[in-house]
């Protein structure tokens, strides 16, 4: 009897739990409805999915802090949300885990050198909402300098190392099939294993995004002994992403990243942002600048962010140009040119729609 009574008293509780899980949510008050942003606010931290092992993009340094272009994107988002770039919890994800982690809500967003593609974007595919591309990349091929391999044709019949579950793997198959080159793809689950097999000389070449190859090469014992073949096998727009179904959160990510682009275009840097803000406050005739920095208008409110989110983001990580140069540019270990990643005013692809 006691057991029965206990069970009977517990079962409505159980039902309530399950029903609660099904109940429709998202009926929060206010102008912007975003379940995800409400969750992030109540948690007090942004959970950001990164690679964590890729110098220049997201790399866990010996002092326990993350650095890189992707890590800075996370930081800019945290600054825009909380006014504090430190409110980020990074989650290292391999290429196979990343979408599941995003779909399950384990991470709020991905800034993990993820290529924007149709099947990932579409609701019938991975169902991901992409923000603006933060790095235009292309797939390349790295070989030992001593191997004498100069083109894809020279790789006929040879084993090539590739990370499984990436667009890289598919592009490799397509390009080789087009050119009728037979090869053996050796697929590994993590980048570490892939490059270990390449350095162990199991394969004569390793393929990945050119930026990633350059980043990994910078960590090799002898970076000069490896060269990138002069082939670009694909378009790889590396783009931060959130899950479909929360447009307000996707917009917040989109426009925070655009703000970094726009700040560079307007010449607002980490160093002079305070000065520019004072200037905007003093001069009522500078409408564009005043709206951009949140002195007037309600752009922040429209996005569900604080009014000064642009100021916070730029103060935290600088504008896009500064982020690029610091992490992957000529001055960094990767030594990459701006190339396609210049501002549109310089002939590049970095373009922010107007802040209107």
């Amino acid at each position, binding site marked *: *009897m006691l*057991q*029965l009574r206990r*069970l*009977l008293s517990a*079962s409505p509780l*159980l*039902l309530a739990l*399950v*029903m609660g*899980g*099904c109940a429709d949510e998202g009926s929060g008050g206010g102008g912007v409805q975003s379940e995800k942003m409400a969750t992030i606010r109540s948690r007090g931290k942004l959970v950001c999915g990164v690679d964590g092992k890729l110098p220049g993009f997201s790399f866990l340094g010996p002092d326990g802090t993350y650095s890189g272009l992707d890590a800075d994107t996370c930081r800019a988002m945290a600054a825009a949300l909380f006014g504090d770039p430190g409110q980020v919890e990074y989650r290292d994800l391999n*290429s*196979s885990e990343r*979408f*599941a982690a995003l*779909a399950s809500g384990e991470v709020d967003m991905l800034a993990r050198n993820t290529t924007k593609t149709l*099947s*990932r974007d579409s*609701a*019938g*595919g*991975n*169902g991901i909402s992409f923000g603006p591309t933060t790095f235009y990349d292309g797939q390349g091929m790295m070989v030992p300098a001593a191997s004498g391999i100069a083109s894809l044709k020279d790789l006929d019949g040879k*084993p090539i*190392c590739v990370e*499984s*579950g*990436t667009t890289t*793997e*598919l592009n*490799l*198959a*397509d390009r*080789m*099939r087009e050119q009728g080159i037979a*090869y*053996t*793809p*050796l*697929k*590994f*689950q993590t980048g570490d*294993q892939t490059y*270990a*097999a390449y350095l*162990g*000389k*199991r394969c004569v070449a390793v393929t990945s995004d050119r930026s990633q190859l350059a980043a990994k090469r910078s960590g090799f014992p002898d970076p000069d002994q490896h060269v990138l073949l002069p082939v670009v096998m694909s378009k790889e727009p590396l783009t931060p992403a959130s899950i*479909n*179904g929360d447009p307000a959160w996707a917009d917040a990510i989109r426009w925070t990243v655009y703000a970094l682009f726009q700040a560079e275009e307007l010449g607002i840097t980490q160093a002079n942002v305070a000065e520019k803000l004072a200037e905007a406050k003093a001069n009522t005739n500078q409408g564009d600048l005043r709206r951009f920095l949140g002195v007037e208008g309600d752009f922040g409110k429209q996005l569900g962010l604080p009014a000064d989110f642009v100021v916070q983001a730029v103060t935290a990580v600088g504008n896009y140009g500064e982020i690029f140069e610091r992490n992957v540019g000529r001055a960094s270990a990767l030594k990459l040119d701006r190339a396609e990643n210049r501002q549109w005013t310089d002939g590049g692809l970095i373009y922010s729609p107007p802040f209107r």
Partner: protein
Amino acid sequence: MDRRWPDLFTAVPLITPDAYPPMSEQKPPIPWWRDRRVIPWLVQGVVGLAMLVVIALLVGNLVRNLTAAGLLLSWRWLGQPASFDVAESLIPFDAAMPYWRALVVGLVNSLRAIVVGLVGATLLGTAVGMTAYSGNGLVRRLGRIYVEVIRNIPLLLQLLFWYFVVFLSFGNGTEALQIPGVVLAKSGLYLAWFAEGWSWQGPQLVNGIWQAPWRFSVEFAALLTGLITYTGAFVAEVVRGGIAAVPRGQWEAATSLGLHWSQSMRSVVLPQALPVIIPGLNSQYISLAKNSALAVAVGYADLYSVAETTLNQTGRALEVFLLLLGAYLVIDLLISAVMNGLNQLVQIRER
């Protein structure tokens, strides 16, 4: 009479007869909800109903959310071209073939590793398990060291060791490790076998590339070495336990018949140990089959590896995982069924 002692031997009623309820014929009938015959059914009914409601809610929730996300179960993608290559395959495959074909390639590769692994682990494990009863102290101790070292190190670590440290340390071409009939190079493991006309053909170096009747990739070789040595250690313990279960008198009886060690082991002890060994082997075999999914760590194109690529290109996580779960479940159930059949065969028939 002076009663200085309490009367110990006279029964004194503790309760007067009036305290008992009257044993009347009109006892009220027990209500059904307190009937001992009804209560178990009631409890089970309520629990069953609650379970059904919970399951229905969860499934309903899943279906509703998947429908909302446009991800409801669909299998049409299985027929679309895979567009990716697989490193090695026993059946013909190219990137233009459909996903299901790629998954079959992965399954065949997995089965190859599992079957060869099972045979290898059994042979190695039986041999090592028997050394525990060897008269040679060195052999006995070596067997013990092998078991203790191998079974106390995580398998993933061992696989990475075999692949990156051992197999990738061999050279290519003339720098390969050459034993008569066997060549170990980075490009693969080459074995001699009978060529046409029953002529024995060993590995040969042609234009700097090894050629042999049998070639295995180093990924397969590393996976197999790892699986066999790891499972072999557990099998050895099962075999040792089985032999220990055979009464000592059987050894003595065999010896007194003039059989030497290997004869007594083979003809007297092992057959009697089998009924004890086989159920234990069953679970080791099953764990070997499951462990084969670690192949992805050493770049071997097993079912899990192919499924992972498929998952990332189609985005059909639920379907791919259902297929994976189903495949491993079926493999393990098959192993269990075979082992249970074997177990029936070796049971000692008592008259």
